[in-house]
């Protein structure tokens, strides 16, 4: 899906947990996330901390969208 949307002319960032799958399939901008059942959350944190975590991940996603890339790039820390 990531590739088709990019083909339509829109930059996409893939936020996902199993990064090797995203790389194999061919996403260009990838941000690794927390866990499969809660990629943008962590139920063991209290809601405030969880929001802070989610915010940090989304900021990384925005960074990925505003960074020129040559090929596939994983935006880790």
């Amino acid at each position, binding site marked *: 899906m990531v590739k088709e949307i990019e083909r339509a002319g*829109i*930059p996409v960032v893939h936020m996902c947990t199993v990064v090797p799958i995203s790389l194999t399939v061919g996403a260009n901008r990838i941000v690794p996330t927390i866990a499969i059942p809660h990629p943008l959350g962590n139920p063991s944190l209290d809601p405030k901390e*969880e929001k802070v975590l989610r915010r940090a991940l989304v900021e990384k996603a925005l960074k990925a969208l505003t960074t020129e890339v040559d090929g596939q790039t994983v935006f880790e820390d």
Partner: protein
Amino acid sequence: MGKIKVVHYINQFFAGIGGEEQAHIKPEVREEVVGPGMAINAGFKGEAEIVATIICGDSYFNENVEEAKAEILEMVKKYEPDLFIAGPAFNAGRYGVACGTIADAVQSELGIPSLTGMYIENPGADMFKKSVYIVSTKNSAAGMRDAVKKMVPLALKIAKGEEIGTPDEEGYIPRGIRKNYFTDKRGSQRAVEMLLKKLKGEEFETEFPMPDFDRVDPQPAVKDITKATIAIVTSGGIVPKGNPDHIESSSASKYGKYDIAEFDNLTSSTHETAHGGYDPVYANEDADRVIPVDVLREMEKEGKIGKLHRYFYTTVGNGTAVANAKKFAEEIGKELKEDGVDAVILTST
């Protein structure tokens, strides 16, 4: 050679321990034949024997690859098997990735011949077909008998160090290995014969299927994110509570487009997940954990992004055919472009 010793790897589901709610379990060993191992063992007819079964949760493996690999390699080493079999994983993505990863590791780090099986669209297949023998199976456990029928003879051949035939003959996914052989007709003749067939509109078989590179060039970065319209797309199956359009929990045949203009935050009373391939508890409690509407809305109010697009698009990525996912995203991409969306955040589970 005495009886061939085999160690078998399966996930929590095929071990009968549980479904998604047990996908986090750490590796354990049982000195017995478990689940699909029974059919495989029976197929060996005494020539080989499963001496131990290693069980691991699919989420645990995929979220802790290095630790899981290390733990499992230690377990395998203990039994000094002649052969290692993982799966079959059919179309279960995490399971296929785990099977491929561990079969590859056992082969390369312990020097023990390995075999696994999965459906051709399983992400594990593309990742490991070059390094591991992967038997091509049907896309669900309904294909267990067919899978075992192909895995057993190939397993015995690999264990005995016998010559392995072509993918068609042995039933494994083509590994991209080129083998020279002599043929009675020379290349120029075969080429002309193939061309004549093609010109006449007759059926012909290519001798070498061209690899499908299918890569997309990255789009240029967003110049000014504070003025950009960002849209959310997800394969995590988030839908309005009640799943009004009945998006399937697996093998989705459709996608949804839902209005979030009125939402600052998603809650357990407004949204849920339709996805049947991961433990839904956390997403049902708070769908923001899969699509970050709350954070993006905040950022919109603060002026960090221009706008959070009014609609989000969703489908269920569980076992959904690649061809369908492609079709959905083509339509979605077109609409988003027409609606003036500047960038997309696509989340997956």
